[in-house]
């Protein structure tokens, strides 16, 4: 009941005209970003973050969350109309969305995607509301030892559960952590890793610089290389009759959609998993539990609904640990976390106590963002069809300029712009060589917290390393972390020493 009262207060904030406008603006921008092939929520948030200085911090976070949401809806648009996922999160939507479009049912597929996203988003926001307070209360008991153990556990999920090459994952985690130590030592205040006394490194490497480089410049370079021919846009017209049909068809799929929502929410909470595997898993479950599994991949509307509910639910799920524990559940929420820290709104349990207006305003804005997204998505379908015809070179040029200027704006140093270009090229090459980028960004964002909590614990315990295991909560986290770390090793040994990773191409 207390939660309901807080949520009602939150709506008072999020339904104010300015915040409502911000949500509508963010969702619309997100839909366009998501609809562009190659650009997803993480790219959108990275590129737009420097531009959000224009509004006050609490509104900026609402704007970025709305973009995150919009991009999750928008990803389906290019999956269906172009057959190219608008973002990796919408890969599973192409399996049945594309065949539907080729059969002339693009309009129906788009409506199904929008409605499914709405259902997934709404169910998961309700779950979010229910879990937020208990989780934040639990986190209040966390000291530095628990914080360190939790961050360690977040990283080991990448090794234990992530689908990427284990060695390369470890490299990327370490690289992110080492980059996070550049600048002044947290405890002694001495400069370290300043590379020949370059003054630009004294303030450290900002998460924003890495994110704009990797997800802005790097993504564009990757897309330039992989887009040899211009894709064909399938025409899509929708009428009110289609809308009625769509909603009636969707009404028969509650089982698939609620399953996708729950699955997405819980998978989304894990840093290593997130929206893409959640969508693929939901698709797989929908197919294997269907009465007619053979129709999947040939334009079954359930094959659009299942992944779309799951990826939207996952995006909400990944916000939960970010807001309550300060541990992001996805690269996009890692950027949101970095942004919040930059604006002085440190996520974690204390935020619920110190800034309840902001927290509940944000949570309630997720509800309004969902309503706005489904309405704008369906209303603007003709506009998206037109926008997808925009030449790719125009998009690239605009994104590149936004990366340069957006990278300069926060610190006003050319040093950061050079770093962005460097990270862009490096990120592009690493991605081509199958190095996962999500752990790199997460490690850079969480690095300072990890080092600080580790060293604080040791100082307060007079150098007793066992302190991490002796405390019950932190001991549990460490045990889980160890399990995740050992898991791939066990798999490897059980296979009789054969390589557990697929050989590189």
């Amino acid at each position, binding site marked *: 009941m207390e939660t309901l009262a807080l949520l009602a207060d939150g709506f008072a904030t999020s339904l104010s005209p300015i915040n409502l406008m911000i949500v509508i603006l963010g969702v619309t921008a997100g839909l366009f970003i998501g609809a562009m092939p190659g650009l997803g929520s993480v790219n959108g948030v990275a590129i737009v973050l420097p531009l959000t200085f224009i509004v006050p911090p609490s509104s900026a976070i609402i704007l970025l969350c709305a973009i995150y949401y919009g991009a999750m809806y928008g990803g389906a648009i290019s999956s269906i109309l172009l057959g190219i996922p608008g973002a990796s999160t919408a890969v599973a939507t192409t399996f049945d969305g594309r065949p539907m479009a080729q059969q002339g049912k693009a309009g129906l597929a788009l409506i199904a995607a929008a409605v499914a996203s709405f259902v997934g988003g709404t169910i998961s926001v309700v779950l979010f509301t229910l879990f937020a307070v208990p989780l934040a209360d639990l986190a209040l008991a966390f000291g530095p030892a628990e914080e360190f153990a939790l961050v360690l556990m977040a990283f080991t999920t990448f090794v234990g559960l992530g689908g990427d090459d284990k060695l390369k994952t470890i490299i990327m985690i370490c690289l992110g952590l080492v980059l996070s130590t550049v600048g002044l030592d947290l405890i002694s205040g001495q400069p*370290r890793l300043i590379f020949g006394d370059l003054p630009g490194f004294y303030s450290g490497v900002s998460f924003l610089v890495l994110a704009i480089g990797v997800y802005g410049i790097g993504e564009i370079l990757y897309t330039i290389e992989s887009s040899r021919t211009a894709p064909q846009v399938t025409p899509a017209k929708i009428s009110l009759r289609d809308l009625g049909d769509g909603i009636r068809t969707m009404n028969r799929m509650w089982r698939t959609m609620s399953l996708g929502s729950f699955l997405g929410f819980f998978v989304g909470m894990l840093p290593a998993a997130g929206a893409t595997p959640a969508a693929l898993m939901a698709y797989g479950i929908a197919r294997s539990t269907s009465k007619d599994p053979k129709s999947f991949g040939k334009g079954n509307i359930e094959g659009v609904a299942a992944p779309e509910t799951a990826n939207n639910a996952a995006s909400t799920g990944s916000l939960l640990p970010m807001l309550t524990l300060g541990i992001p559940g996805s690269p996009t929420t890692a950027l949101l976390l970095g942004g919040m820290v930059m604006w002085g709104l440190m996520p974690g349990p204390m935020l619920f106590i110190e800034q309840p207006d902001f927290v509940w305003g944000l949570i309630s804005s997720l509800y309004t963002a969902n309503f706005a997204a489904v309405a704008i998505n369906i209303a603007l379908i003709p506009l998206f069809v037109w926008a997808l015809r925009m030449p790719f070179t125009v998009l690239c040029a605009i994104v590149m300029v936004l990366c340069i200027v957006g990278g300069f704006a926060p610190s006003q140093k050319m040093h950061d712009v050079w770093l962005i270009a460097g990270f862009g090229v490096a990120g592009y090459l690493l991605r081509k060589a199958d190095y996962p980028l999500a752990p790199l960004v997460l490690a850079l964002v969480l690095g300072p917290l990890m080092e600080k909590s580790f060293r604080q614990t040791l100082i307060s315990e007079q150098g007793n390393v066992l302190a991490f295991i002796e405390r019950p909560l932190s001991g549990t986290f460490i045990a889980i972390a160890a399990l995740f770390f050992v898991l791939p090793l066990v798999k490897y040994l059980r296979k009789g020493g054969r390589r557990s990773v697929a050989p590189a191409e």
Partner: protein
Amino acid sequence: MLIADRVIAIAIMALSAYFMWHAIALPIGWNGMTGGPGGGAFPFWLSLIMLLSAGGVLIRSLMQAPSSQHFFDSQMLRSVILVVVALFVTIALIPVLGAYIAIPLFIFWYIKIYGRHGWVLTAALTIGTPVFLFFFFEVTLKILLPKGVTEPLFFPLYAMFF
């Protein structure tokens, strides 16, 4: 593909060693007085893990049979290199000629020369982008972009908006 994999692994190993070399400027061992590691310990030991893991990647790729797959799409590699060069040239020009010359030049190159689009689109973007940037960053956010030698040209505009 394998060659590229090896080159990248070696590059990461070199980078890790470089990080380690810088990290030893601060104590990397256990500090008995305060308890806990010194300031250089975190970057040093993590770089060491990175070095060893990259070594593992290198050894693994050396044990594999070479494959004929290419790392780059040879047709598109030229485009990527062109764009990267243009990007670096633009960034280098910003402090000299100013953002309001360098960025329109980049857009003109990208849209007209690289993208081969029509004059109307090129002109609209080449003129529209700097105007948008000026009003968004300088007028609204009061963030001044570098102007280089073009700085005096902006004095009348400053007088108008500030």
